[in-house]
């Protein structure tokens, strides 16, 4: 029974990866198509905006898209992402049922679940704000992560060691992966923001698709909103982890390598939030902080887990 479920899970992961790859291609094609759209001046759109009278119309952050042309590649990319995500979530659920516990007890399972959450957050955020333009970044990142997980991190289903048998496994790790999801989107937006700032400064003349994306200022605001949510989750992760450490290891804080890096990440993002209120630190500098912060998150999960000696030795490798 367990073997069958594990096989389901594996098949679902590989199928999801194949479809994410297609989605990634579609997202990329969409970005390149935007170059063509920019070339043709979007005059009709300007007229539509000025036709309104005195009453201010709520302007969405939608990129300048001629209404007549349906962004076909983009719609296909989003549809593929949704299909892949359903399979992806299915893979995580099968894995969890096969193991009889939450599917995030080792690095393979954590990657599987955390990437599903990243895509989940990416899809959910669309209802609130159109962030489809970072789809290429997000699906690309998730595809690489899943590839590394299935090839390098894969472990068979094994029972939980006593130290992981705690309700905090559900809370602490799940919230950590939620935080990771928001930080990933924040970093993606910050990368686009940096590109956009370069373009505004006349340096990235080749990247014409940027003209169809929101301005650097708007991107900064979006990234900030993602990251503050991520920061709250991260703070909670830190505290929940300390409470769990106090029960499992007998102290709430012991500067274990993983604790150190979680603290470093927290400090970097605390710096990011303060940077907004500091003269001379808004804009590209704070975008760099967001990117460094997310790099530290990835570093904490991969390098620290695998090569640093510490108590968080649950990779199963």
């Amino acid at each position: 029974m367990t073997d069958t479920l594990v096989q389901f899970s594996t098949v679902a992961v590989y199928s999801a990866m194949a479809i994410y790859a297609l989605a990634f291609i579609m997202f990329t094609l969409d970005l390149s198509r935007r170059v063509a759209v920019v070339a043709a001046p979007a005059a009709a759109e300007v007229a539509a905006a000025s036709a309104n009278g005195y009453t201010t119309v709520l302007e969405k952050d939608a990129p300048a898209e001629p209404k007549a042309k349906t962004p076909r590649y983009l719609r296909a990319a989003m549809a593929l992402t949704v299909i892949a995500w359903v399979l992806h979530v299915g893979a995580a659920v099968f894995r969890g049922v096969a193991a009889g516990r939450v599917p995030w007890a080792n690095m393979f399972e954590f990657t599987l679940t955390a990437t599903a959450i990243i895509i989940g957050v990416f899809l959910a955020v669309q209802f609130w704000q159109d962030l489809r333009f970072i789809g290429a970044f997000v699906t690309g990142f998730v595809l690489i992560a899943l590839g590394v997980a299935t090839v390098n991190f894969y472990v068979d289903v094994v029972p939980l060691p006593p130290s992981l048998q705690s309700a905090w496994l559900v809370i602490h790790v799940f919230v950590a992966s939620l935080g990771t999801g928001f930080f990933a989107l924040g970093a993606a937006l910050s990368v686009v923001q940096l590109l956009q700032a370069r373009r505004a400064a006349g340096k990235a003349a080749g990247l014409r698709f940027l003209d169809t994306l929101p301005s650097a200022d708007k991107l900064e605001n979006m990234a900030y909103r993602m990251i503050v949510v991520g920061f709250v989750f991260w703070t909670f992760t830190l505290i929940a982890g300390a409470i769990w450490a106090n029960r499992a290891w007998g102290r709430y804080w012991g500067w274990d390598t993983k604790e150190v890096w979680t603290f470093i990440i927290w400090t970097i993002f605390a710096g990011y939030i303060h940077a907004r209120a500091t003269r001379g630190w808004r804009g590209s500098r704070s975008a760099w902080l967001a990117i460094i912060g997310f790099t530290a998150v990835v570093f904490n999960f991969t390098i620290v887990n695998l090569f640093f000696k510490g108590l968080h030795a649950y990779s199963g490798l």
Partner: protein
Amino acid sequence: MSSPQSSEKPASDSYRPQGHYDAPEQQITQPKLNFVGYLRFFWRQLTSMRTALFLLLLLAIAAIPGSLVPQVSSDPNGVIQYKANNPGIAPILDKLQVFTTYSSVWFSAIYLLLFISLIGCVIPRTKHHFDALRARPPKTPARLQRLEGFTTRSATGDAVTAVAVAKDLLRKQGYRTEVYGDSVSAERGYLRETGNLVFHTALIGVLVTVGVGGGFGYTGQRVVVEGYAMTNTLASYDSFNPGRFFTDAALEPYSIALDTFVPTYEEQNLDALGQPTDFVANVTTTLRGGEPQKATIKVNEPLNIGGTDVFLLGNGYAPVVTVRDPDGNVIFSQPTACLPQDANLRSNCIIKIPDGLAQQVGMIGFFYPTAAPMADGTLISSYPDTINPVLSLFMYTGDLGLDNGQGTNAYALSLDNLTQIAGADSGTPAIQLRPGDKADLPDGLGSIELTAVPRFVSLDIHHDPAQLWVLLFAVLVVAGLVTSLFIPRRRVWVKAAQNDDGTLSLEYAGLARGDDPGLDAAVAEFADRHIDQLGLKVGP
């Protein structure tokens, strides 16, 4: 900070028009600062946001070395090993306190400066916020159209009613309101700043309570073998780390006897055969003057007793070896806790018998709970439970080094002054014992018997008088953070102007104070609701 003038260097050989003379180079006249003036200057610098941000990022960087190099606090053996492996750089790192990064002078300096900066920021803001809480919302600006979310509506009726309705509606939405003529000024979201102040103050609270807890608390470790007990006294601990303000009085007397230790190992799943799935220590606890009580200690389920938490951190085997002299008198008979070396609990045991035999005898034992021979004849352990237990002993005679009064490590045997008499190249094979087996010691020294193989647990006992306070402040940190980031602080104004034809022109606008993505929508929505409400009041 340099003033703007100082950065403009007077260019003498420039391409300036002839006859143009730069102003004579002037010394910048800064106000002379006395001692207090300098103090004030440095205080301003320290409490500026720029400095706080700098310190915050510096703290992140300063924390990195402690994760690259083993720390005395979390991995003392790693430090010893690192020093042995890197004799060149270790003394330098030691001087720079890298092995104790998180209590080093430089790391402490950064976070203390950061917290001073924080306090210097929080205090004036608290005062300011306190004043703001009691102040009236500010006067309505003259030109609302310059503000965010500006929108207009028209209605019928009179301005006074319209303003009164707007005021009621705003109040219901949690705004403080103030009517200024034909307009109402409203502000909400004071909780945002309150949350922000709570967050920062709670961080200080965490730092202080962690310090207090570390100062008055203690941690101790003790190995307890099945059938034996430990008492909560200083002498009873194998290792003990008191806080700075610790006194013996803080040790509440109690005893914990280990009745049995029951591990459960995976037996079904072939991918995880022998992986532990549960550890249970069944203990009997006795408080001074109290009745003995049964209790269990598990991983993730510490025992709370006498103001301490008792954690189950490790386990292993403690074979009882009985050594007799040639006449059959028992010289030595006690359990020896053996250090587990791998997941299948292959364990190393050190036994020292300084007295009673013709010579001092030292033994290095290798205990295999489930012994299995490799192709080359050496043993490994293939399962962590005792299915086929074997104790293999190397024997040494000579000077154990116990007589010079210096403390020695009970878990290590210094071979400097010892001669091997059994095992390896000594010519005599290692002594192999199963439970109940007896064997003669080489050289007619006597005999040895493996009497029993009980298990041991290593317990960690912690006393931290401030840990609930740390938790409380940590909860406040999260609560403060959430309110400070997600409660919008905004001002809203509604202005009514009576037109000549009897209609009303209503203007609405808002002002965000801090990040407030929903402001425009909120103003528009308010305007619609206001019009609806007016319609009900005035009638068609």
